[in-house]
């Protein structure tokens, strides 16, 4: 879906809060029609980056252009064409579901009749139409999330910013949100999301930017990154010194890592090598699985807790 037209461009983008550097001289481009994910542990600088894109926080240093507009001087123009779905629930509890959308549309100078028309369409699209006249406090977490997404689309944005769109949702609600994000992408909306969920990034993103300590440490297509850093398959077994020696002899090119009482063996070799090994050696508590983005994430950012 993506084109070669650059929609967002950051040069030496930096944000400091006092002496703490949240975003540290990063450079990136986002192309029109892409779905891009910012990944990283807590405090990596993902949300801060997104908040600078929609002019919520001023830059400390560097340059940031959105659709050709400078975030430092043309905030109003940018905010007109960007839709924001923040992490926290900031729906207006004083209003009903549909009134939330109508009042929000007013901030964009959308006339009332048009606002009501769009609001009804969005409520239908996000499957909350039957709740249009209830107060926000009566909505479930999943419905609130979908209403926040609907609200972010009321101005028909070119760019949609989703800050952890599915945190706290059950699997059903999460999949509904994913389906909705995919169909928005098909309509040509450029989507930027932040997430902790690697599965989500793999499912939705054309490209991911992996952040740690305020820097972008890696970027690329999710499956290409898995291939590059991890390989094809992972074998997980209980830690056992003798077994480890056997495995090392069998797979000299593989990467071995011990996590707690489990050993992970990563191989670049084609699928099936671990299975053939298991046919010859009977072992218990064994898992063979495909390498995934989470392996890349943990390899590059480490396993240390961040907060």
């Amino acid at each position: 879906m993506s084109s070669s037209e650059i929609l967002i461009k950051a040069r030496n983008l930096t944000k400091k809060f006092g002496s703490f550097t949240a975003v540290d001289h990063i450079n990136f481009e986002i192309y029109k029609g892409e779905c891009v994910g910012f990944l990283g542990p807590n405090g990596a600088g993902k949300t801060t980056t997104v908040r600078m894109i929609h002019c919520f926080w001023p830059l400390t240093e560097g340059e940031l252009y959105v659709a050709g507009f400078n975030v430092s001087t043309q905030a109003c123009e940018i905010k007109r064409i960007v839709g924001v779905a923040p992490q926290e629930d900031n729906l207006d509890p004083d209003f009903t579901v549909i009134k939330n959308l109508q009042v929000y549309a007013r901030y964009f100078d959308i006339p009332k009749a048009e606002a009501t028309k769009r609001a009804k369409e969005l409520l239908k699209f996000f499957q909350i139409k039957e709740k249009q006249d209830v107060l926000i406090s009566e909505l479930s977490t999943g419905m609130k999330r979908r209403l926040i997404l609907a609200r972010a689309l009321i101005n028909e944005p070119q760019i949609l910013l989703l800050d952890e769109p599915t945190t706290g949702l059950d699997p059903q609600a999460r999949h509904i949100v994913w389906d909705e994000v995919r169909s928005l992408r098909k309509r040509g909306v450029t989507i930027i999301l932040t997430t902790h969920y690697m599965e989500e990034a793999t499912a939705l993103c054309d490209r991911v930017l992996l952040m740690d300590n305020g820097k972008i440490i890696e970027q690329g297509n999710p499956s290409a990154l898995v291939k590059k850093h991890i390989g094809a398959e992972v074998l997980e077994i209980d830690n056992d010194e003798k077994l480890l020696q056997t495995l090392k002899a069998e797979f000299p090119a593989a990467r071995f890592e011990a996590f707690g009482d489990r050993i992970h063996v990563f191989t670049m070799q084609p699928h099936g090598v671990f299975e053939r090994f298991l046919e010859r050696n009977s072992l218990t508590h064994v898992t063979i699985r495909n390498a995934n983005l989470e392996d890349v994430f943990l390899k590059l950012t480490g396993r240390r807790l961040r907060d």
Partner: protein
Amino acid sequence: MTKIADSPAKFALPKLTYRLWHVWRRNFDVFMKTIKVNFLPSLIEPILYLLALGFGLGGFIQPIEGVPYINFIAPALVAISAMYGGFFECTYASFVRMYFQKTFDAIIATPVSVEEVIAGELLWGATRAAINSTTVLAVIAAFGLISSPLVLLVPIVSLLGGLLFACLAMCFTAIAPNIDFFNYPAFLLITPMFLLSGTFFPLSQLPQMVETAALIFLPLTHLVNLIRGLVLGRVEGSMLLSLAWITIVTVALFLLSINLMKKRLIK
């Protein structure tokens, strides 16, 4: 590397557009929705004061400045309701919208700027003040306590006075670490003003030093002076002075409160 020149810490004149009225309108819509719970209490309080102080206590009190006691305090009740309206709207109510409901965060993701959000809140606070005081005005009119057509200017004066209290309140909201903090300005500023601004007895009854301090520092003194003059139909030169005092302080507090809020909200 480009340094960003416009640091939020710098004192600046706010750039405002018509969009601030969208914020005003949001609060107005909520007010209209909850008008029953908003309206009745503000109607009952002045009636109680009039009954207890005006008719009850007033029976034992000599006329003040040539008017019966109930006529003396009635205009003060109008001014007090403007003070409460502006002050409480832009302390507790604004703080709830800013801190708990994150309404400001939601609005500034749209073309409306932080400055316009705060200005809209302040004008709404002033509007609340004018609504409250006009309601009280209607109550005292029903008791036959109005003696001049100049009273028609009271809603406008209340709007201005209300804006002053809204701006004053917003300065506290900008520095409040939590909602309990508002106990300080409420008890240390609003309550003394309620009692010592020429509301229930003439300022001249107070020791000279306190009287002077009340004239210099207490906004309510000037609002009471203006509204009392209009309600009783006694226009005096001191009213111009009060109007000038209120106007200057309102402009100063308007700029200060928006700058303090920007400092709090923009990191």
